[in-house]
């Protein structure tokens, strides 16, 4: 009997959908199977409280690859990103630091903290742009296996080597530093203002169970500089209707090419026959056959849950088991009756940008220490946006939704009892810390959704609650993501592929893994 489908994608996250869209576009009869009732994985919008749309997990967009936007015509399918171009950091002494979209206002603001830093800041940005430009080709490259590169791999390595060589000696030195240093040490070389260092360090620790003083965090910083919006590097924005809108746009593109997408269709197992994938078994017992199966789930789910260890080489199983997930963050989403008032915010327009609870380097390092010894930071770092200030579809008129990314929060919270008690304690710590900077907040909360790393694992399927499908540390990047020898989207099982953020180029709403995986699959299918 002939199979009904050419390819099955396990998981309707944004990368699974991207992979499906590319396969369907190439004429493959493609089926996406999503466990939940809603598409998007961690890039999902849900109306948790009537009238209020929550960007449940992932909340901002920047790293989405421009080639995916172009090739899948995502704008036509509903991609609609409004820029977030200011940042506001309230300080413990009542002062603040603000970054504006225009350089002159930003310079004036930094000058209040350090005249020297005001002049250094544009140079630091320039260095980071230069580095982002230098490593940008890597994002679109299928990682070769350096131990067995083959002709194609050698060509890739040669091209990358030439490209890096062209960047010049200074760039090479800067790049080496970024690849090895801690973000704190890196910023010490540039800035004297503590609050500016704290703000600049944030992208180095986000989503990673490392403090700003841990080596390797400088690279995480660079990873977040590789985004671009409308040709502008490092620009961040909010999708209209929440990040679920990005997933919906990709899903719409996939459907337009003929892909079929099923929700509430959890996959239990990969069906393997003579070392090759031949289909999947659903939890309800149904079996669906196809000559290609792709997993958009993270490496632990892809290889340790969907597949029996006996179907995999022992060394590979060991590598996957060693792959570090270590969720480091939680999420609190609020429905608000009115806007929070930050007394330190003198310019009301800043409420439409990013709000960072990161008043000092010590605050960040303490938050890390605190979480390392007991579960979560009692005074955490928070990355906040209030998308309803720009997009009126997020909340009823005059009301608001507040998305609070909270770090650090470990997967294990041994001091706090049951998961429900952990959630309660974690949510309370977030609100009470935030009220230190916006005292009226507690009076305007209509509804609160709290997600610990455990909750992220249970609801979204992110192992240990890691938002990137595994940490973005150097030992887990490029040709090591998720395991040496299997960074090219293939797996030890023939016709079984991986396309999630646990593969290159990693986490965030990039759609990069989904695209590159699809291109490799199509290569093999030729």
């Amino acid at each position, binding site marked *: 009997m002939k199979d009904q489908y050419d390819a099955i994608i396990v998981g309707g996250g944004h990368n699974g959908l991207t992979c499906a869209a590319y396969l369907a576009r190439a004429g493959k009869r493609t089926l996406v199977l999503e466990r939940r009732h809603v598409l998007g994985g961690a890039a999902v919008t849900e109306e948790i409280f009537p009238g209020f749309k929550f960007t449940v997990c992932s909340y901002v967009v920047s790293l989405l690859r*421009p080639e995916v*936007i*172009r090739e899948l015509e*995502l*704008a*036509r399918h509903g*991609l*609609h*990103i*409004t*820029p977030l*171009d200011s940042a506001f950091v309230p300080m413990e002494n009542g002062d603040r630091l603000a970054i504006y*979209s*225009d350089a*002159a*206002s930003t310079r004036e603001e930094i000058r209040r903290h350090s005249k020297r830093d005001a002049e250094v800041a544009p140079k630091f940005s320039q260095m980071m742009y230069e580095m982002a*430009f230098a490593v*940008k080709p890597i994002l679109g490259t299928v990682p070769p296996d350096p131990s067995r590169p083959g002709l194609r791999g050698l060509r890739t390595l040669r091209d990358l080597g030439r490209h890096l060589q*062209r960047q010049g000696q200074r760039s090479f030195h800067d790049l080496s530093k970024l690849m090895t240093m801690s973000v704190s040490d890196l910023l010490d070389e540039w800035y004297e203002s503590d609050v500016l260092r704290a703000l600049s360090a944030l992208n180095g620790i986000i989503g990673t169970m490392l403090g700003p003083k841990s080596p390797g965090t400088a690279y995480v910083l660079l990873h977040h500089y590789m985004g671009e919006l*409308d*040709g502008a*590097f490092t620009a961040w924005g909010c999708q*209209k209707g929440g990040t679920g809108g990005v997933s919906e746009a990709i899903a719409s593109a996939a459907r337009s090419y003929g892909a079929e997408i099923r929700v509430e269709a959890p996959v239990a197992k990969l069906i393997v026959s003579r070392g090759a994938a031949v289909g999947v078994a659903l939890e309800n017992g149904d079996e669906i056959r196809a000559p290609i199966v792709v997993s958009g789930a993270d490496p632990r789910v892809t290889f340790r849950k969907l597949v029996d260890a006996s179907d995999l080489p022992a060394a590979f199983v060991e590598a996957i088991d060693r792959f570090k997930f270590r969720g480091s963050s939680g999420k609190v989403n609020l429905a608000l009756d009115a806007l929070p008032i930050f007394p330190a915010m003198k310019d009301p*327009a800043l409420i*439409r940008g990013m709000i960072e609870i990161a008043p000092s380097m010590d605050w960040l390092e303490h938050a890390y220490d605190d979480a390392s010894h007991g579960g979560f930071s009692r005074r955490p770092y928070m990355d906040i946006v209030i998308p309803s*200030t*720009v*997009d*009126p*579809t997020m909340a009823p*008129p*005059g009301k608001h939704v507040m998305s609070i990314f909270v770090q650090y929060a470990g997967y294990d919270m041994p001091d706090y009892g049951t998961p429900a008690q952990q959630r309660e304690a974690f949510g309370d710590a977030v609100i009470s810390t935030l009220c230190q900077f916006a005292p009226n907040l507690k009076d305007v909360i209509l509804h609160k959704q709290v997600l610990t790393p455990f909750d992220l694992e249970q609801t979204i399927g992110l192992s240990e609650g890691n938002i990137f499908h595994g940490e973005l540390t150097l030992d887990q990047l490029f040709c090591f993501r998720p395991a040496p020898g299997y960074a090219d989207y293939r797996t030890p099982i023939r016709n079984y592929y991986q396309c999630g953020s646990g593969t290159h180029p990693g986490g965030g709403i990039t759609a990069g893994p989904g695209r590159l995986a699809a291109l490799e699959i199509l290569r093999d299918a030729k």
Partner: protein
Amino acid sequence: MPRPTPFHSRTSRSCESQSWLEWSGFLSANSYELEHIHEYDAVRTACAVFDISPLYKYHVHGPGSAALLDRVLTRDVGKLPVGRVSYTTWCDDQGKLIDDGTVAHVAPGRYRLTAAIPTLDWLQDNGLGIDAAIEDHSEALAALSVQGPTSRAVLQRLADADLSGLRYFHELETKLAGIPVSISRTGYTGDLGFEVFVDPGWAERLWDELLEAGQAVNLRPAGNVAQDMLRIEAGLLLIDVDFVSSSRTLFEVQKSTPYELGLGFTIALGKECFVGQEALRREKERGPAWVTVGLVLDLVALERVYAGFGMPLHLPERSWNEAVPIYADAERREQVGRATSGTWSPILKSYIAIARVSPRFGRPGGRVFVEETVEAQRFAVPAQVVELPFFDPPRKKA
């Protein structure tokens, strides 16, 4: 020296950028913040208000009002029911375009015409012998344009009338916060939107009420820089940019006809005699010398041009209004038209331009080459020919 509009006390208070343009002798804000992008986004995501008071406005009434307008305008005004608005052009006797605007049938036998350039004498001269009165209300009417997906919601908060029944290109009289106004479902953005005409004495209060009511749905004032990006996305032409009024140039080469500009749909050739009718009829038979199309530039090719300089792709932050040549070939041997305005479209994630090309290159799906200057060197970047408008959301007419 440019004069203030009736809203100036309010617009100047909000205009942090202090960037103003002279528009028909009035001060008009380019952008309220230093950057225009939030104003652009407001129109596509929430809503924005533009001060469009500098538009020229004429009221024509009396027994011969329709006959007069029918003699001047290319549309069949006699067929326009009360409460309807129509986009129209008007031409000289050679069929060359003078201007475009909207004509609204506001009450039986009473019309309001908007224009970009002064038109009183043209109406008067062509109205000789017709029993109709022409009044220049350009300064007797202040005007605001409220545009964007939440524009109806914000106006409805203030309006006596039910605006959900006000259809695209219809108009009604009502009160906003007790202030008498005319509201037409029209605009220059290609989005859901309305234009509000009001006595200047009420202007400041109307502005205040609107901004107050708009807070809950993120309304903000917006200026010309955002406006220009929006109208290009909507495929709407701008006088002195995409065409030159035949009344303002001595040179034939600078004149154009509605057919050449893709505005043939505004010409009711079959109605009784109107200015330019014969010339337009001949042109229709012959076919226009140019056609107006949309172009979508190939970003991959443009990126390659920048890569040649070791630079990342650069996209324009705002629209451009200086015509550039269109070629048939990458070597720039045969010029086949000109792009008259263009912009990066954040909503479409495309680099778009409005262009006038030779008819044999005007077929949608075809390919032409647009001149792009990078680091003061000229290149020809491939572009796909598409139909206008680029952006046309269902909510515009819904």
